[in-house]
Each structure stands twice: as structure tokens, then as C-alpha cells.
């Protein structure tokens, strides 16, 4: 039962870059930053590739943004995705706008399954997968994870964690919930979102990077898709986490105990 899977590749700031809040206090300084594919999305690409390796089918990767998102699309293509869709949008956009674009791309591409990151590491909104499932009227299995560890043999063998039923009509997903795992089953088509423990994404092979150059990237626009991307959600304030206060040195254990008791109220 070949599967057509749609995955996403959001362009996000690399967590190794030093992030600074800008002067206006509503955004970050973009100068000199490095970018990469959202790690949750990368896990989605990996899961899709494993499913397709097992069941056959194809993987389509989508990204919404400026021409720069080609880097992230090419990365997913180099990992092994078959084709890419670029929704070209240069201005600001919010989660509603992105989900709206994805909905139209899904209606056009007609995948059996969408796999998105449960959130993006830039603004941690965690909304898009849920909007998308809602608007498509599809079932959703969020926070997909698995029982085996990332050091397990199953992981080394690149076994997909999402199970496809023998008739190809439904999937079983293990969800990470507070204090445990919850197994759900859903008919296809469906939307799944990924947890960090779902898998360890592969490296883009270097021959894969070469091949990715000749794989197609289709360009679409919100207007062409008939999506209103007018921003409804605005960031009003962005603040860095409070700087750690300088430590103090205590002369002896007695003072330490005293301070822990009376100042920190830890004892």
C-alpha cells in the first residue's frame, strides 16, 4: 500500500547561534544568524522516509517563506524526499496563515498522511498541526513518539514508529503524554506531529545533496492558493530570560545552612 506523505520544513534559527532581542523588543537581531530546518520537522521527514521505505510511496516537503527556505527544502530533498513545494511569501505571517497555506497544498497534493513538527524551535507556538487537521476535517495524532530508545536496534534499523494497518487504511501512533505513552489509532488521511524521541534523523548523504539539485521545487503563492495571510497574531513583547545573578561565596558551612534556611527557604 504505497503512501503519499506530506511533511514540512520550517526555516528556523540554529540553536547554536547567539540570539539577541532587537532594540524594539518585539523581534530578534537577524544579522549574522545561522539557519536550519526545524529539528521537529526533520524528525517528520525521517519518519516519512522510513514509512515510504517500508510501504512504498512518495514524500513531498513543503515550506512557506522567502526564497531562503530553498535551503531547508533542499536539505529535506537531500535526505531523500521526492519533491518540494515552496509557498512563496516575503512578509510576516502567523500560524493561521501558514496552516491556511498548508491546507490548500494538501488539497492539491492529496497526501494520505501529513507529518509536522509538534512545534518549531524559533517561537514554540505549537499550533499549525492542530489547525491543519481541524480545517481539513482529519483526525490528528499529536506528539508522536515510541517505546524503543534512540539507541535501540529498531532505531538503528530505521524502523518506522508509526504503524500502518495491513489494509493501509489506518495508522497507529504512540503519543507522549504526561508521565507515559498513549497509543492511538486513526483512519487515514490524518495529521501527525512529532516529538523529539520519535527518531534520530539521518544525515543528508553527500550524493543525496548532489541529487537534490535536480529534484523539482514547485513555486506557489498564498494569493494563487486563495489564502488570506493577513497577520492576526502579533508579538507585542519579547524578552530574554533573566540573566543569572552572580553567586556569592559563604565563609563556612554554618553560614551556608543559615542562608539556605532563612534566605532561600530551601531547608
Amino acid at each position: 500500500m504505497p503512501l503519499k506523505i506530506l511533511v514540512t520544513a520550517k526555516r528556523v534559527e540554529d540553536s547554536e547561534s547567539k540570539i539577541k532581542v532587537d532594540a524594539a523588543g518585539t523581534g530578534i537581531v537577524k544579522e549574522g544568524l545561522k539557519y536550519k530546518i526545524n529539528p521537529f520537522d526533520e524528525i517528520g521527514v525521517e519518519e516519512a522516509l522510513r514509512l515510504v521505505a517500508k510501504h512504498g510511496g512518495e514524500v513531498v516537503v513543503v515550506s512557506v517563506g522567502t526564497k531562503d527556505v530553498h535551503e531547508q527544502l533542499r536539505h529535506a530533498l537531500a535526505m531523500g524526499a521526492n519533491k518540494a513545494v515552496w509557498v512563496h511569501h516575503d512578509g510576516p505571517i502567523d500560524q493561521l496563515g501558514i496552516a491556511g497555506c498548508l491546507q490548500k497544498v494538501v488539497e492539491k497534493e492529496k497526501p494520505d498522511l501529513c507529518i509536522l513538527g509538534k512545534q518549531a524551535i524559533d517561537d514554540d507556538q505549537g499550533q499549525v498541526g492542530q489547525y491543519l487537521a481541524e480545517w481539513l476535517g482529519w483526525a490528528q495524532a499529536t506528539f508522536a513518539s515510541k517505546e524503543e530508545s534512540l539507541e535501540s536496534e529498531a532505531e538503528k534499523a530505521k524502523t518506522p514508529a508509526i504503524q500502518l494497518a495491513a489494509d493501509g487504511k489506518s495508522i497507529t501512533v504512540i503519543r507522549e503524554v504526561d508521565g507515559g505513552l498513549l497509543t492511538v489509532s486513526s483512519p487515514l488521511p490524518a495529521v501527525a506531529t512529532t516529538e523529539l524521541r520519535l527518531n534520530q534523523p539521518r544525515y543528508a548523504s553527500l550524493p543525496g545533496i548532489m541529487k537534490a539539485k535536480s529534484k523539482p521545487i514547485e513555486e506557489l503563492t498564498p494569493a494563487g492558493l486563495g489564502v488570506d495571510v493577513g497577520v492576526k497574531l502579533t508579538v507585542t513583547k519579547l524578552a530574554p530570560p533573566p540573566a543569572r545573578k552572580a553567586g556569592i561565596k559563604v565563609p563556612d558551612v554554618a553560614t551556608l545552612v543559615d542562608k539556605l534556611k532563612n534566605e532561600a527557604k530551601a531547608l
Partner: protein
Amino acid sequence: MSVGINRYKADLRELCFVLFEQFGFSEYAGKGCYEGWDEATAKAILEETYRIAREVLGPLNSVGDREGCKVVDGRVKTPKGFADAWKQLFEAGVKQIAVRKEFGGQGGPYSLYALIEELTSGANTAFNMYPGLAWGAAEVIAEFGTEAQKKLFCQRMFTGQWGGTMCLTEPNAGSDVGSAVTKAVKQADGRYKLSGTKIFISGGDHDLAENIVHLVLARAEGAPAGTKGLSLFIVPRVRVDASGKLGELNDVQVASLEHKMGINGSATCVMNFGESGECYGELVGAAENQGLPQMFRMMNGARIAVGIQGLAVTSSAYLNALEYAKDRKQGAPFKQWKDPSVPRVAILEHPDVRRMLLELKAHVEGIRALVVKLAVHRDHYHVLAGRDDDQAAYHQGQVDLLTPLVKAYASEEAWRLCGQAIQIFGGAGFLKDWPVEQYARDSKIFSIYEGTTHIQSMDLVGRKLGQSGGANFTAFIGDINGFVEANKSHPVLGKDVERLSGAAEAFMQVAMGLMGWAQGGKVELVPLNGNRVLTMMSQLSVAWLLLDAGVKAEAALSKLPAGHADRAFYEGKRYSAQWFARNVLPNVEHLAKLAMIEDASPVEISDAAFAS
């Protein structure tokens, strides 16, 4: 997956500058045999390789150092994680980028591969020896093997299915490989029976691949003495049939492992061939006594790879020292050094720490430029061969000329500069908690294997300077003079560019002097000054290339708006060039003066006078 912590650091911005901006990657990539290559692809490949270097190889670097290799039941067991890393490296295609398509590679430019080697060698020098040697051995078969040999061995070795080694050294044949006594006796079926002992064989055995193909230097029965009588033999650890199917073991034994100062994750083996009289091999190619040119071919590639090892660890030592210097607080600002009330500052603020860091930065960048220049000449050669033979010959000539410099200068400086990186750390650098002590220990071997520094210097003065009637050397000096003419009025670097002329002239004088000594009865002055000449030419080259980078960086800088993030990078290039031109380049003229003293004390002093 990661059992250790990654300490490896590289500066991809700088790697991309050298390859794309300084040496014009796009001028040859995309042409002729490199069709389909471009900057964006090369950059993506470097980024992904760096990720693999940090995530797969880096964490195993200290693990390999501490665990080392063991012999268990006659087989070498490599450190934990090495086998997995081998698999991942070849799956990701890292080692196959510059391998010809017919052997399962991507046919990419060698200059890109040189930087990939930097990333993998730097992340884990000892590990990278295993695939590196397999690559080198496969290259020899690809160039000199019969069609059947190429078909049987090359793809399997280039793609990691089989490993490979180079077995040259014997107890009495180190620098003097011509003394090798390992014997090969021709059998009725055309194969050879080998017998002998090889020592110091890197990766002589391991558990990373299903077979290991040894290239063994030996003397066929009845062959002349010395280097003329050497032949190279293909000796698989497990015998194979023409289809590549593995058969019986081939009487190749690891007798023991050496216990070493560094690169402990790399097994250095004493190997016995034919102890039971059952070791079979075949000649590389079809004729006997071709071992020397074949070996030179193999060694040229390996020598460049050793130079890259030196560059790679020094670069990471520099970046680690820099990070530490920003963090470690000690002492007062130097202008208020007597005032105990001023807050303590990061050691990065001390002038002498900055001097050490800039010395590291300038050397790393200059040596990288030298490595990439050599590699780019090789790429140009491949693009031009058969189309413009004069130009192709020029490029090949520069590759030949620069190989001993890359091998010897990068390796000697690695040992010295890793020591300096430890100095920047202070006491912490001497501890195993930080990576620099391992870098220092690992780097000492670079100036020894694949021909000691002196062997390189003799290659330079005895062969390379006079090669092609001196044409390669003349072209090299011509290129420097052309650069000086074009840039001596440069508004920022002009004065420093002018310093090149004096150094180039002083160097030429000594180079001419060598001939005079050789013909004028002072032949001992040639080896006595060999290493010095090599240093002079290396420092001259590095100064030139840093100034070239500086001029290009200034041009780029003038196009950037104030406050642009890249400005600091380009300004850094200016300071590397300027520092080297003022603090190292003048040394060339100084060394020339020393050479002209014609001191022969080391050969005049009697053996007994050294000490009895």
C-alpha cells in the same frame, strides 16, 4: 550514540572564504570533468560533513585515545564506536565525494575533498586514518592496476566495503625504503608468494570492514638491489575470487601492536606475511620492478593528507584556545596591572595571549590557503589535461612543488602550535579535561610518517626545485612577483606586500647557493640547509597567500555596509596577513643570512665530541 563529548571546532566561514572567495571555486567547478558542481552544493556538503564530524567522529576522539586498540584472538579490536562511525561515514558518502564515478564516487573536485578531509581528520585524527589509508591504496590500484584489478578492488575499497593499508616500512627500511627485504616468489599460475615482516603498519588489521587489502612493497625473486628492484603487491587479508567473493584466510598475521604517544585509536601493527608459507598476492599492474613510481604516487596523496592532518588539529586547537581565552578570568587589565581593586579580566584581554592567538590564527589560515592552493592546482590540471597541455603542465608542476611544503611545514607547525595552544590554556591545557593535550600528542607523528621532514626537504631541494629544468620553480617565483607588482600600492596592505620582494629575493639566493654548494665541493651544506630552505619557502608561500587573502578581503569589505556581520571576518583576514608579514616573513631574510654563513659545525664535530 555519543559516548564522549565532541570538542572539535571548525570555522566554516573561513573554509568557504578560502575555497570560494580566495581560490575561485566557481572558475573550475562546473567545467569539464567537474560539470554539475557549484558553490551552493559545495557549501551544503561542507556543512553536512561538519555536522557528521561533530556528531559522529568528534565524540569518539577522546574515547579512541583512552581506550586504544587491542589484539583479541589474533584480530585487532578498534575502540568502541569506530565500527559504527565507519558505517555512517560511508553511508553518508563523505569519503566518496572526489572518487571517480566509475568507482562509485561523485567525481567531485579534490579541493573540496581536501576541506572535507580537514573536517574528518580534525574531528578524529586516529579514526580517519583507517578510511584514509583505504583510499590511498585504492588510488594506486585505480592508477596502476590492470582492468581486472580495478574492477575487483577499487569500488569496494572506495566505498568502505573493504579497507586497505600501505605496507612499506620494515625493521631495516624506514626512511630508506630501498632496503626492503620482503620477498615475493612468482608461482606457476602468475601469483606471488610473499614472505617478510612489516612494521608500523597503520590499520594493519581492524574490525571495520569485511576485508583488508594490503599493498605490500617487496622484492621479486631475482630483482636488482635498491629502489629499482621494488614491486608493489596486492595482498588481501581474506582471499577473494574474481567476483569478489571472500574465500580462505591469506596467511597475514598481526604479530603485535605498538604502544604510542598519540593517535592511539589507530592500530599501528607489526605484520607478518607468509609465516606459514601461504601468503599469496598479485603484482599491481603487469610488470615487476615498478614499485617505486607507484609508491611515489601513493605517497604524494598521503603526504598531502598528512599536511591536512596538521592543519586540521591546529585549527581546532586554535578555536578551542580562543573559546577558553574568552572565558577564563585572570589578572587585571595590563594598563592597570598594579591595581588590585580593578575587576579581573578574561585572559583574552592580555596582549601576550592575543599575540599567541593571532599567531595561531595566521598560521592556520595561511597553511589552509597553501593546502587549498595545491588542491586547486590539481583540479585545474584535471580540467585542462588534454585541452591545454601547457597550462595543465604548469598546474601539475605546482602540485609537485608544493607537496613537500604542505607535508612538512603543516606538520612541524602543528606540533609547535598545539604546544602553544596548551600555553594559552595554562595549567588547564595540560589536563585531559581539555582537548589540546591530545592534539599535541596526536600531532607529533605528522612530521615523521610518510617521510620525515628532512626527507621532504631533500625531495624539495634534490628533486622539486630543479624539476622540469626549474620551470615549476620559476613559475612559482613569477607568480609571487606578479602579485607584488599588482598589489604593492595597495592602500592598506601595500607596505606589507612589498616585504615579499625582499624575502623572495633572499630565498632565490639561497636556492642558487644550493647549486653552488653541490657543485663546489661543499655538498654537506645542502642537507645541512635542507630543512631551512623548506622553512623559508613555506613561510614565503604562506605570507604571499595570506596577503592575497587580505587583498581580497579588503575588496569585499569595501562593499559591505557598516555594522554588517561579515565585516569582522574580513578585518580578521587583514590582521592575519599583516601579522604574518611583519612577524614571520622577515625571518626568511634572516634565515638566508644564516645559510650564507656556510656553517658546517654539525659535520665537522667528531662523533666523540658530542659526548662519549
